[in-house]
């Protein structure tokens, strides 16, 4: 690990505009520092600045940036009204990690691309301009949507996928004041600058994530992975859908594990609305989402896997039998 200085912030104001890296749970950052993928000169510990409460926000909920994943998943209101969020959180990491990992830190989680971790490999995200060894390498777990020829890494998390389907918003405070960014827009697509994961500017502090009023829809988080627990998603699907009088009146759907950010496609959701929940409609929505999907060799399988997972999640959420279709 490279040398750094350490200080504790006492208030949010100490952290806004501060030089160096903020550390909260540290479960991802410290791991990357041990490998010298991350080499901050200065760490500012934000574990003692407050922002650790879950409070009503109108009919919604305001989740402080320092709320631990374990507490958010176990919150009675979240379990009752936003079960998708509980399910996604509990599908990620281990009990020990969830006790440390925070809401804000989890949004900042970095990719698990093996070349990002390997200092001997070319990686535009870690070392801009060096190239991307994943393009023709071990890319089994890489993106099929939203990638560029500079970077095909995925965002690995679960929580933000659920938050994206639930229309949650990140509250950010920086030198220019407070701004609100939908969780679905918080992570950047790589384009020509894959080294920038998010829309945060230096000196910004995530203060909270806000959830709008519960939709009352049926919510499902379906995660496909290589082992049953403590593994990142190959594909995950978050669904929040309302069926009234035999037809779909509202549908929100976000995908994880297949793009540089939680992937949402409003046009595909619109295809579902007004239809009865059936296999043909689910397949049409899946095909619309995956229209521009592209595999890179080892991850080609993710395109049909994503299609089937979307259909299965919609079927589960609407209680539809699709076993003979698709």
């Amino acid at each position, binding site marked *: 690990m*490279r040398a*750094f200085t350490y200080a504790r912030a006492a208030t949010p104001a100490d952290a806004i505009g501060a030089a160096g890296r903020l*550390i909260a749970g540290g*479960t991802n950052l410290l*791991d990357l520092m041990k490998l010298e993928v991350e080499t901050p000169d200065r760490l500012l510990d934000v574990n003692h600045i407050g922002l650790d409460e879950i409070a009503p926000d109108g009919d919604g909920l305001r989740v402080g940036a320092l709320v631990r994943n374990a507490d958010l998943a176990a919150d009675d209101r979240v379990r009752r009204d936003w079960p998708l969020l509980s399910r996604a959180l509990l599908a990620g990491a281990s009990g020990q990690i969830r006790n*440390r990992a925070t809401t804000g830190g989890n949004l900042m989680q970095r990719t698990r691309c093996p070349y990002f971790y390997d200092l001997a490999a070319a990686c535009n995200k870690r070392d801009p301009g060096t190239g991307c060894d994943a393009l023709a390498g071990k890319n089994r777990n890489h993106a099929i949507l939203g990638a560029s020829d500079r970077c095909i890494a995925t965002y690995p998390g679960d929580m933000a996928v659920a938050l994206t389907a639930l229309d949650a918003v990140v509250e950010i405070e920086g030198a220019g004041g407070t701004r609100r960014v939908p969780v679905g827009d918080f992570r950047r697509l790589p384009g020509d600058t894959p080294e920038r994961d998010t829309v945060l500017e230096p000196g910004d502090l995530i203060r909270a994530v806000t959830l709008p009023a519960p939709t009352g829809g049926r919510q499902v988080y379906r995660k496909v992975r290589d082992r049953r*627990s403590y593994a990142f998603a190959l594909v995950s699907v978050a669904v929040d859908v309302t069926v009234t009088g035999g037809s779909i009146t509202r549908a929100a759907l976000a995908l994880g594990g297949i793009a540089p950010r939680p992937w949402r496609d409003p046009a595909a959701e619109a295809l579902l609305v007004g239809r009865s929940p059936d296999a043909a409609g689910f397949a049409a929505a899946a095909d619309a989402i995956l229209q521009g999907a592209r595999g890179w060799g080892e991850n080609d399988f993710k395109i049909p896997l994503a299609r089937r997972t979307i259909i299965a999640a919609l079927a589960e959420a609407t209680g539809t039998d699709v076993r003979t279709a698709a």
Partner: protein
Amino acid sequence: MPAPSDHSITLTVNGTAETLTLPDPRVSLLDALRQRLKLTGTKKGCDHGQCGACTVIVNGRRINSCLSLAVMHDGDQITTIEGLGAPGALAPMQAAFLHHDGFQCGYCTPGQIMSATAMLDEARAGWPSVVSGDLTAPSLSDDEIRERMSGNLCRCAAYPNIVAAIREVADTAPEDAA
């Protein structure tokens, strides 16, 4: 390169306040426990939060001590395997692991026992897991135990006996466990 500076921290470890001067903040909680306080019951396995051998209980919560800096725990209450029980006065989870032969080589065992102890507190508080059918009313089946313990690996694969040991303690009411 910044110049490292001394950090003086106080950890309450197994009920005893310990003040440490760290010449550099690059010391994990795990290394502080093992190398500075000579509490070598907590094990270093992967050192990346993947195996759970370093699990300790901090302010009542199980965490991976390898994924935390010691300086971040100034003022915290820490319980290690040495504080859970002692020869002749084993904690219920320690006794259950012996009774059910919940280990082979024993290297992962302190982490398994610390994790299981805190996991049962989480379950008693009603926390759900991803395998809970009803998020609002989970009950601790063997499937639940396996899922909730997935952050602790055992390369000897003593898993069936680990589950049996945890099952025995889970089925004993906490007030009877002493």
